[in-house]
């Protein structure tokens, strides 16, 4: 690690199965790009990779490697969404995000760190997983693993993961007020939650008992400014929820950056599932 970038962490698809102990799954903020990048270098979809945020790092490869950059374009001087060979001693230098927020560096063989509760993913808030539970620093050395699938390496580039202009949500009620407004991502957003700024949403009346909260829930605290609960979210919460981002658009939440405008569009659960299936078809077309 020659330079770490703004916030670079080891991520995979997270550690589901521990919510009853208060542990949220964490994992890549844009899991779709991580999965695609892994497939491009012939890793299993969930192999650990590096997640860079807004400004990327510079990496020196001590041994030859095959890498793919996916997600947001960080101006790295190599083609995105394409497997690329790097030579021993070569530097890969990522710059600033041209658009979007997160870029994934997937290395054939996967990034090797000790698994915590079955996952390599870093949970920053609780200092869990990844490399010592923290963001990477200058001078860190990461091992490449051996999880790659056998076979001749000859995969071509793929198209970037498709993104819709609005975040689509489902809601047991109606999400009209949420969908009518244009929101802006606040600067204090992070992997735990995206805080939005906009018109004040009506206060939910009545008592609400603390209950489980799913990934992508759009919570409305008493100040009426919604928060999209994200990969490091708390497992339970007591605020009312206006809607929930659909599974197929969670990757797009991971690409939002501070001050980006956000629109919501309500869809049915059946429509959400059809979109998820289409997305999985796109992903499987990479294999």
């Amino acid at each position, binding site marked *: 690690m020659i330079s770490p970038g703004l916030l670079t962490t080891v991520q995979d698809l997270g550690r589901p199965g521990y919510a009853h102990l208060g542990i949220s799954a964490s994992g890549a903020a844009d899991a779709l790009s991580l999965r695609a990048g892994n497939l491009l270098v012939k890793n299993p979809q969930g192999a650990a990779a590096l997640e860079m945020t807004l400004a990327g790092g510079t990496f020196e490869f001590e041994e030859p490697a095959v890498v793919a950059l996916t997600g947001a374009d960080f101006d790295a001087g190599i083609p995105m969404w394409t497997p690329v060979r790097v030579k021993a001693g070569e530097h890969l230098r990522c710059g600033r995000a041209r658009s979007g927020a997160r870029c994934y560096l997937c290395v054939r063989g996967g990034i090797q760190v000790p698994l915590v509760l079955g996952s390599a993913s870093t949970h920053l808030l609780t200092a869990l997983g990844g490399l010592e539970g923290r963001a990477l620093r200058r001078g860190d050395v990461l091992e490449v693993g051996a999880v790659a699938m056998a076979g001749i390496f000859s995969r071509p580039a793929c198209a970037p993961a498709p993104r819709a202009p609005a975040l689509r949500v489902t809601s047991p009620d109606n999400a009209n007020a949420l969908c009518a407004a244009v929101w802006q991502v606040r600067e204090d957003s992070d992997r735990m939650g995206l805080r939005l700024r906009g018109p004040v949403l009506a206060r939910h009346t009545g008592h609400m*008992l603390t209950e489980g*909260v799913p990934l992508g829930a759009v919570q409305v605290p008493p100040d009426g400014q919604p928060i999209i609960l994200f990969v490091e979210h708390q497992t339970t919460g007591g605020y009312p929820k206006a809607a929930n981002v659909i599974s197929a658009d969670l990757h797009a939440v991971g690409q939002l950056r501070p001050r980006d405008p956000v629109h919501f569009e309500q869809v049915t659960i059946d429509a959400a599932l059809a979109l998820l299936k289409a997305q999985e078809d796109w992903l499987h077309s990479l294999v």
Partner: protein
Amino acid sequence: MRMVDSSDRSLLLIFGEEISVATHQDVLRLSSLLRYTPGVTNVHPAYASVLIDFDPLAIGRLQLRQAAGELHARAHAAPLDQPRTVEIPVIYGGEHGPDLEDVAAFTGLSPDDVVELHSNTDYLVYFLGFSPGFPYLGGLPESIAVPRLETPRRKVPAGSVAIGGKQTGVYPVASPGGWRIIGSTPLQLFQPDADPPTLLRMGDLVRFVPIARGAL
């Protein structure tokens, strides 16, 4: 039991709007069974609800609703284990409990009375949530219930024992928090390498035991 589609990959089972031991036991029985249902990825029990996260490509929503209904019918009669009692040693006051004096002032009690009341009660772990291993405890004596801090602390140290409203709890990991800190425990409530990784589990009884300052 009511079911709500809280997202395209989660289902919320609601048992009522009240906190009660009987409801807690329903939640406990059902949530342990649900964790082993194929396609279920996470189960979040709470006071009177269970949120099920599932993989919608592995199990259909209607299929899961049916499975949850059947498990609920079956679980209702299942016997529960005798609850464990877990003792948590606490150093109250001073640097370990910077808000003990304030809690005493709010309640009109002496700090010693607050400690006596806080440590002389069996608390029920209704569920673990919020952050890894954080217990939602029931049973705080009303006489030591105090409002939360107006401005939450940016970082509450791991092991802090605190009161917030009618609730009390222990912070297993350092995190932001708005509860008033009355003490600290040297016990680790969350150890990721241990099996299980949390000291407490849902349904346990907790008793805080005052210990001397030099014990840390």
